[in-house]
C-alpha cells in the first residue's frame, strides 16, 4: 500500500526525519511510538503534504504512485486520510456541507458521478453511529465549539465518510478520556478491512489496548530504530524510552 524509503525531511533548515523507512501492506495496522521530538508528527505532516516541510532525500510510493509529487487534495483523492492531532475549527462551514463537497470532489477526481442527496444523508446517518456522534454535531459548523473528544470523534466520522485506503491517525488519543478513547478505537476497528490499512501514531501505549496493531515501530531521532509486535508497546510502557535511546547510541 505505502512504501516510505529513507525519507529525510527538514523544517526551517532543521533535519527532523533522518532516513525513515516503513512499508505498510493492505489489511495491516502499524503503530508508531516514540518520545517527544522523535519526528512522529512530522511523519504525519509529510504524508499529508504540508508545504512547510522540505524533503531532501528518499521516496514515498502510495498505491504505485509517487506520493510526494501529489498536492494535498490529490493525496485525499488517491485514498489517503489524516486524522489531525489538532482538528481545525471552521466557523460558518457546516460539517455535512463540507463533507458532501469533499466526497464529490473525490468522486469527480475518480471519474465517478456525484453522490445523491438521499444517499449522502443515509451515509451520514450510518457513519455517525459508528462514533456515536450526535446527528446535531454532524450538521454544525466544523469542530466549532466541539469538546476535545467530539473533535476526535468527528475526525473518525470524516474518515468513515471518506472511506480511505490508508488512514494516518496522528496522536488521536491525546486529550481523550477513557470513554472517548474507547469510542474512537471502536470506530477505527469497525472500519478495518482487508483492503485498507492504518498508521496509528501515539505517544502512549493506552490506545493500543483498543486498537491492536500488527506491528509496533519505535521512532527515535528521525528513524525507526526498533520494530516488534504489540508486546513491544507494553515493554515501552513499562520501561519508558530511555533503554531505546541507550541501545541506539550504543549501536
Amino acid at each position, binding site marked *: 500500500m505505502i512504501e516510505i524509503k529513507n525519507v529525510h525531511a527538514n523544517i526551517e533548515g532543521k533535519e527532523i526525519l533522518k532516513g525513515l523507512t516503513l512499508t505498510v501492506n493492505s489489511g495491516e495496522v502499524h503503530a508508531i511510538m516514540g518520545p517527544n521530538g522523535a519526528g512522529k508528527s512530522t511523519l504525519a505532516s509529510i504524508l*499529508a*503534504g*504540508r508545504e512547510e516541510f522540505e524533503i531532501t532525500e528518499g521516496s514515498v510510493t502510495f498505491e504505485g504512485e509517487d506520493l510526494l509529487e501529489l*498536492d*494535498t*487534495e490529490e*493525496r*485525499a*483523492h488517491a485514498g489517503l*486520510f*489524516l486524522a*489531525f492531532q489538532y*482538528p*481545525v475549527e*471552521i*466557523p*460558518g*462551514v457546516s460539517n455535512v*456541507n*463540507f*463533507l458532501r*463537497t*469533499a*466526497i464529490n*470532489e*473525490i468522486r469527480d*477526481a475518480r471519474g465517478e458521478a456525484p453522490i445523491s442527496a438521499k444517499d449522502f444523508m443515509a451515509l451520514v446517518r450510518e457513519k455517525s453511529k459508528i462514533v456515536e456522534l450526535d446527528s446535531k454535531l454532524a450538521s454544525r*459548523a*466544523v469542530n466549532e465549539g466541539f469538546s476535545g473528544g467530539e473533535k476526535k470523534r468527528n475526525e473518525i466520522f*470524516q474518515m468513515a465518510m*471518506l472511506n480511505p485506503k490508508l488512514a494516518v491517525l496522528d496522536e488521536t488519543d491525546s486529550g481523550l478520556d477513557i470513554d472517548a478513547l474507547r469510542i474512537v478505537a471502536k470506530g477505527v476497528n469497525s472500519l478495518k478491512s482487508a483492503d485498507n490499512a492504518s498508521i496509528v501514531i501515539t505517544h502512549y501505549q493506552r490506545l493500543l489496548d483498543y486498537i491492536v496493531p500488527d506491528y509496533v515501530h519505535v521512532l527515535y531521532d528521525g528513524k525507526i530504530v526498533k520494530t516488534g509486535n504489540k508486546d513491544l508497546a507494553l515493554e515501552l510502557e513499562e520501561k519508558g524510552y530511555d533503554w531505546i535511546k541507550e541501545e541506539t547510541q550504543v549501536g
Partner: protein
Amino acid sequence: MDKVLTQTKFDVLRTKLSPTIFPISDNSISKAEALLEHTDFPTRKIEAWKYTNVNGLNKLLLDGKSSALTKPNSISKETSKKVHIINGKISKEHSDLAGIKTSWNELPSICEEDSFDALNLLYCTAAIELTFKDGENKTIELIFENTRDTAIFPRIFISCKESAKGTVILNFQGAEKNASFINVSTFVDVEENAHLSIHKIQKNGSETFDLQREYVNQAANSVFAINTFPLSGRMTRNDLRINVNGSNCETFMNGAYTLKGKSHCDNHTTVDHKVAHCYSKELYKGVIDDRATNVFNGKVFVRKDAQKINAFQSNANILLSETGSVNSKPELEIYADDVKCSHGSTTGQLDDEAIFYLRSRGLSEKSAKELLVKAFLGEVLEEVDNEDVRSYVEEEIEKHFST
C-alpha cells in the same frame, strides 16, 4: 484686476451632462449652483474622501456607447411591483407604475451640503416617489439596467407611512464593460411604527463609477433595515446617513462586498442617535482580491440625552491577495452616559490551517477558499430576511469565484 477664471473639475464633468427635464425652482437651482461653483472634486485633504479619489470620473466619455446586458436580472418574485429604469430613464412600457409618482411640478430641493447631490438635482434623469401605506405590505423593485455609457442620475423618495410595512429593492445591473456615471440620491422617511427594508444591489459594469447617498429619517417605534451589496464596478461609494429622531427605534445596516481587479469600494455610514431607547446594529464584511481597495467608515453618534442606546458596529475584511488594501475606520461619539456601544474592525487573510484541513479532505484549494469566503460572508446574508435577495447574492458570490 481681472479675476482669472479657471475651469474646475465639476465644470469639465458638466460639459458632458444634459440638464434635467424636471422642473426645479430658481431657489433650488441657485442653492445647487452655489455648491458647485468654483468647486473641484473632493480631495484627500477632506477627511470623508481621504481614501477615495474620484478624478477618474472625468475620464469617462459618457458618449452613449452601448454594450449588451446579457440578463437584465430582476431579483424579486413576480408578486412584487417592478419599475425598469433603462440607462437612467424610466421605461413606462416595462414598468408597473400604478401608485408610483414619476411626474413632478417641482423637484424637492437638496437637503444637505453635498456637491454630488447638487449635481444629481441639476441633471436628474429620473425622479421616483414610492409610498407605502398601512395594510399594504408590498415589495417594489427598481431595476436599473445600464447598457449605455451615460450619466444615470435618479432621485428616489421613499416614504413609509405610519404603521406601514414595505420592502424596496434597488437593483443596479450594468453590462459587463459598462462605463457609466451613476449618481443617486435617495431620501427615506420612516414614520411612526413603520417597518421598512431596503436591499441595494450594485452589480455595475467594470468601468462604472457609482456614487450614492441615502438620507434616512426614522420616527418613533420604527424599524429600518438596509442591506448593501456592492458586487462589481470601477468605483462604488455609498454614503448612508440615518437620523434616528424618535425613541424605541431599531436600525439595521448590513453590507457584503466582493472586490477584484482594480475596483474600489467605499462605504461611509452614519447613525445619529438623537433620542433615548434605541437599538442599532451594523455589520459590513467583504473580500478583497487582486489590486482592489476597500474603505469603510462607520460613525455612530449618541447625543447627550440619548440614554439606554444599544449600538453595535462591526467591519471585517479578508484580503485574498497581497496587493489588495483596506482602510477601515469605525468611530463612536458618545455624549450620553448610560449606553451600551461597541465597535470593531478586522482585516486579515483566510486561515491557512483551515485551507489545509479542507484540502486534506479532498477539496481543491479553490473550493476550500470559496467555502471559507462563503462562510465569512454568510454571517451578513443571515441577516437578510428576503429570500430572493439572499439567494441572488449567494449566486453572485459563487459566480465571483468561477470567473
